[in-house]
Structures are given as C-alpha cells and as structure tokens.
C-alpha cells in the first residue's frame, strides 16, 4: 500500500505556496470568531437578542390607531401602551425606529437609526407647557424589564416595562434610568433638560410679550 509522504509534500512547490495561505485563512477565521465573541460579551452575559418585540406583538384589545384631536400616528405605527389619555406608539420605517406619543395637549416623536435604537432605546420628553404635564415616553430594547424613576426630592421607584414601552407622567421627575441586558446603564437627565428649556422658554415668552406691547 502506498503511504502519503508528508516530507515530500511539505517540500513540494504546491505546499510552499498553499500552506502559508492556509495558515492565514485559519488565523482570519479564528480572529473573526474571537472578535464576534468579544462583541457579544466574553462573559456570556448578553443572552437577549437586541430589538423590539412590540413590532411583532403590539397592544391589542383597544384602538390600534387613536386619533387625538385629529392628529394620528404615522401609517405602520403600532400601539404599544396607553396611560390615561396618553397613547404611545412605535414605528419602524426607512432604517429608523421612532417612539411616538399622542396626548390631548400635544404629541411628539423621537427617532433614531434602527441599529442604534436597538442598542440604546429612544426617549421622548414632553415639557410641561400650555397646561400639559411633564411626560416621558421610553422605547427600550428587549430584555429591559423595568425603569428606575427618581424624583427631585430624592425618592425612587421602579416602573415595569410592557411592550418595550414605559410612560411616566410626573411633575417632579428628576431622571429615569434603565440597564440594558448587556450591562450598560442609560440615564435620561429629564430634570436638567426640563430646567434649562423652561428657563429659555420663560425668557423667550417675556421678550415676545414686550415686543407685542
């Protein structure tokens, strides 16, 4: 029986070319696997798939697209949560994800690139103007089960996430905080944003009133 001669093979012209190329290919594959493992968290903590399950499982049992004062969410939006007369929707179009809120006093939408929003979530802060309440609507990725709410007096409480969405309406809101499944904590500094905006608005309205006189 003829046996394979390894020494002869390694010395051949083919082997002198093929072996280094093969080594580089193996190293490249190994490197890719290592980088992918690092990105997913080498400790294996990242077990949740990023994304928003609300698009597959929207809120049912109520009106899917409410019209508040004639204003509607964009076509394709899904109803995610309601809180009194505050309706929260999520939409995903053109590579963007949005969280949308409709209230009798006004509404809003905050949008970002889908990939980024799946990593961080989206926040929409409604300032207390024209008789409306301070409100925060959050769209958080899968795996975020609760949000920590801190008030200006230092008190804190936990709010449960449903359908990737949380609606908070509080006059003395200081911050909201949530921890993503891969260990990153996001803090929305609601109090400082509202304070600086309200100061600017007061100055602007005062100037507007003087101009009108």
């Amino acid at each position, binding site marked *: 029986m003829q046996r394979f001669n390894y020494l002869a093979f390694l010395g051949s012209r083919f082997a002198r070319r093929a072996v280094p190329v093969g080594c580089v290919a193996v190293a490249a594959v190994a490197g890719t696997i290592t980088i992918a493992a690092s990105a997913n968290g080498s400790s294996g903590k990242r077990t949740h798939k990023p994304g928003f399950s609300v698009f597959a499982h929207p809120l049912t049992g109520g009106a899917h697209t409410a019209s508040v004062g004639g204003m509607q969410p964009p076509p394709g939006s899904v109803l995610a949560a309601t809180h009194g007369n505050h309706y929260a929707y999520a939409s995903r179009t053109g590579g963007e994800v949005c969280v949308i809120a409709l209230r009798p006093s006004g509404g809003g939408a905050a949008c970002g690139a889908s990939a980024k929003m799946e990593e961080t979530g989206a926040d929409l802060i409604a300032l207390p103007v024209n008789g409306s309440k301070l409100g925060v609507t959050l769209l958080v990725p899968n795996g975020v089960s609760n949000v920590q709410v801190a008030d200006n007096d230092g008190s804190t409480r936990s709010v449960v996430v449903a359908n990737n969405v949380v609606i908070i309406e509080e006059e003395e809101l200081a911050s909201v905080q949530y921890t993503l499944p891969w260990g990153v904590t996001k803090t929305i500094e609601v109090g400082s944003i509202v304070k600086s905006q309200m100061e600017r608005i007061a100055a602007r*309205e005062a100037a507007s009133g003087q101009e009108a006189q």
Partner: protein
Amino acid sequence: MSVLKSMPVLGRLSGRLKLLLVTTGALASGVTALGVAQPASATYETYSCAACSSKNGPEAIILNSEATNYETNGICSAVWRHNADGSYGLLVDECTQETYKITACYTGSEFKGHGELEKISLTNQHLAGHEDNYKYCG
C-alpha cells in the same frame, strides 16, 4: 366628440354603465384624497443652520415642528403660535436625549406660527428642521 367616446372601451358601453364607472372613479379618487393626511393647502417649510444653538422656522400655517441634530444625539423641537396681539405662545415642546430627531405636534387645529429647534448640548451644532400642517405626528 365627447371624452367618453374618445375612449374605445367606454365608447361601446351603455350610458348608464358609463355614468356608474365615472361615479365610481370619482368616489375612489375622493376616498384616496381623504386617506392622505395632508390638508388641501399643505404647508412644508424647511430651515437649517451650520452651527447654532437654536433657530426659528419661517412663519406659516402649521401643526408640527421637526428638528434634526446632524452631529450628535439630543435635540428639542417646539411649536409656537402667533397670537392676534402679536405675541407668541408656546403650544408644544418636546426633547430627546438619546436620539437625533424629534418632532413636536399640536393636536388642535392648524394656526399661524412657526417651529423652533434647539440643541441640548453645550456646543453649537449643525441643526435642521421642518414645519408642516400634516395630520400625522412623526
């Protein structure tokens, strides 16, 4: 020669059927027009700044104000009404910290006023906005 007779297929149909087809077409057009949430006199004004902290949009008949921060996340958008006495009243003001685009929508009837965009961060940034009177928010 009538328009209907100029169409070979319609020309062979009876008068009553022609009327039915034309009426159906007119109704379908009307329903389609109603389905689009833009008013008959749609407003759509855009504005931007290369490096600023805030900017007002032009005066127009509006409902919504959208603002985009091209440099980083964090932006606010406001809707101002121009009152009869010449003063301005703030109707809606919405902010975001984690995204780069925000829209503020007024849920009442359209009015004369303008949108406004404003950054959250300390440095001036490349901002852009548009204002419209569409019935969709976002």
